[in-house]
């Protein structure tokens, strides 16, 4: 297939996944803010820390309230990864390759875009739970339509690569920020701790999975173990890399030696590793290294298939 088409498909799914992740972070952030009361700026800006956007947010001069943070990340036209920009970018990429995806996929993503226009009509721009639910649902729908209609061939593989590279990035970021804030340092009690950790799990649709797996109180180490190593959980790093490696294997081999080598290395750490290995370097260092490698892998995939030589 055309290199340019591969690039559009890959970014179409990365942007959609990014929009969904942003909605997840904001949704959980909003419910946490209700728990922690008004004065806690640290909670309010947490979505900005996770997405590395604290500085540009400060530059807008908005007050750091949960509501303003949510509006910024959901609707700000100057923020390249705001939900609205991600959905627009996703649709633009789809429009560029509407001949390479099924008509159901195109109609679904175009319909999302039309509904988005209706939601912002008259400056309404909602940033509440209902809106975040909608974003998640549209993303789920697109994945479902994709799953049900497209041939398992290169377009599918590039779409899947985009989804899982983006998702791995997101899970690692959430884990890194949430775990870095030691609950004790906040003077939190067991109850606050419980809500914080269950919020992490809910933001990656894993609360039920945790209960089923551990059948015990929510504990920070187990949360990390689940989100990093569990092979059955669709948002764990391990699961994401099973998919990355599988899809890379289906694509033409010759141009992608660097990407495949790096992916295999990252995958091996997740497949054969355990929490004890992480303890050696520290969770945060482990996650930071993972995030850096994930960026390098994205670049290698790009160089292999999408750059116009």
């Amino acid at each position: 297939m055309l290199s340019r088409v591969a690039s559009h498909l890959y970014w179409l799914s990365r942007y959609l996944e990014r929009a969904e992740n942003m909605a997840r972070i904001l949704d959980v952030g909003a419910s946490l803010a209700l728990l922690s009361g008004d004065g806690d700026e640290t909670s309010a800006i947490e979505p900005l820390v996770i997405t590395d956007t604290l500085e540009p947010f400060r530059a807008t001069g908005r007050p750091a309230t949960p509501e303003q943070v949510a509006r910024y990340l959901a609707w700000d036209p100057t923020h390249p990864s705001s939900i609205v920009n991600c959905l627009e970018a996703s649709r633009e990429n789809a429009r560029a390759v509407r001949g390479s995806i099924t008509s159901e996929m195109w109609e679904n993503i175009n319909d999302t875009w039309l509904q988005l226009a209706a939601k912002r009509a008259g400056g309404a721009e909602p940033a509440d739970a209902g809106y975040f639910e909608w974003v998640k649902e549209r993303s789920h729908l697109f994945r479902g339509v994709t799953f049900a209609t497209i041939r398992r061939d290169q377009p599918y593989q590039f779409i899947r690569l985009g989804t899982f590279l983006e998702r791995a990035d997101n899970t690692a970021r959430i884990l890194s920020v949430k775990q870095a804030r030691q609950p004790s340092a906040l003077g939190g009690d067991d109850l606050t701790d419980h809500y914080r950790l269950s919020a992490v799990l809910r933001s990656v649709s894993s609360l039920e999975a945790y209960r089923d797996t551990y059948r015990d109180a929510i504990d920070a180490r187990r949360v990390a173990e689940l989100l990093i190593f569990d092979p059955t959980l669709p948002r764990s790093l391990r699961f994401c890399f099973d998919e990355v490696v599988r899809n890379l294997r289906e694509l033409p081999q010759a141009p992608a030696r660097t990407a495949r080598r790096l992916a295999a290395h990252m995958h091996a750490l997740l497949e054969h590793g355990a929490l004890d290995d992480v303890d050696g370097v520290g969770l945060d260092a482990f996650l930071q290294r993972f995030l850096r490698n994930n960026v390098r892998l994205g670049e290698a995939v790009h160089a292999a298939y999408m750059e116009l030589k």
Partner: protein
Amino acid sequence: MSESALTPLSAPPGIFDEMFDAAHAPRPHYRDYADWLAAISADHMAAKRAEADLIFRRIGITFAVYGEQGGTERLIPSDVVPRIIAADEWDRLEKGLVQRVTAINRFLADIYHGREILRAGLIPEEQILSNGQYAAAMIGTRVPRDVYAHIVGVDIVRHGDGTYYVLEDNLRVPSGVSYMLSNRKMMMRLFPDLFRRYRVRPVEHYPALLLQTLRAAAETDSPTVVLLTPGRFNSAYFEHAFLAQQMGVELVEGQDLFVKDACVYMRTTDGPKRVDVIYRRIDADFIDPLAFRPDSMLGVPGLMAAYRLGNVAICNAVGTGVADDKSIYPYVPDMIRFYLGEEPILRNVPTWQCRQPEDLAHVVAHLGELVVKEVHGAGGYGMLVGPTSSAQEIADFRVRLLADPENYIAQPTLALSSCPTFVEEGVAPRHIDLRPFVLVGREIRIVPGGLTRVALRRGSLVVNSSQGGGTKDTWVVDAPGGFEAAP
């Protein structure tokens, strides 16, 4: 709108009404439709139209309008009342189109090689050789089977007496066929009962015929065909993507192609892949910055060299524009007589060439009655429709005309036929034209009908989608003929 039945209005005198005869009785091929319509309420029709709009918007069958803000995507209004053509009329139109397009291809091969028509003195030599659309690069370059215009969209209108006239032969990158296909799909979905009443000749196989046509343009056995688009910001992008998908060929932009050792390749995830046929949907001027416009970002450097060596086919060929230029149009009947030894089946509209002093004098004296067009104009821009223009507009146009008479031709204002159309006031007559799509491969194929464009404003004669026009599904039905004046 109401629950009362729709009572279609007839066209005013002097206008040919496609549906009704002079006594307001439905013509034979419209009788079943008229019966059906009599039982339909305005509310029902409005609901159907709303459903169609919703589906078109969801599918993204939209059109970007020049001069509007970026990101503007508009629907081309699709009317829910079909335009119906009786089979015997269509069969005659089809013969006329085959004849016309055959002669035009003979003409193109001739002017780039032997120039017999010029030597015979039928067309002034300087009108061809100094024409901006005459492609010097094509002189002496052979194209497979001598086919230059593979895809032709011929604009046909119907005068007050019912006679069909050819208004324009679009030989460069005619568009609109995707609307023909979408309209049919939509009408079958909205009104399945109508398709049980009528045997409408199918058009859905157009993409298959187009692919056959494009494959036949190559000399190789199983050629790789691509569709070259300027990209998603082009107004006709929907059509490009649609046709590529329907044919199962790659939709490429200039940056996806490159030329190596005088062969054309596309950049793929598997490495370079050879391309044999390019269905270009960009102007020939833009296809190769080395050969034509150096500022073109849309083209492929070196493409012309590969083309001239016969290593790639381009459809339509480079240099076809010289034959659909409005200054050459008046000679098409002569071409038919010269190359085929036949009398033209389809009529040309009488045309005054402002380059000729006596014609210019006539045009200047009758500006208020005529339609004056730029020789290279398209899309309804830069033209004067005398009868609907103000005195000031006519005066302004006269200045432009006199400053550069060679740039203009004039034609009588045709009383375009009208067809009942669902508008605010109910079902009322609106002016229409017809663009059949002619495919020239190993043989000439035309799907029955084509695209009917309709001027939605009352009294307007401008059907262009860029100027408030809409479209209609066009049916060729096996019913006894309506009316057509003898040629």
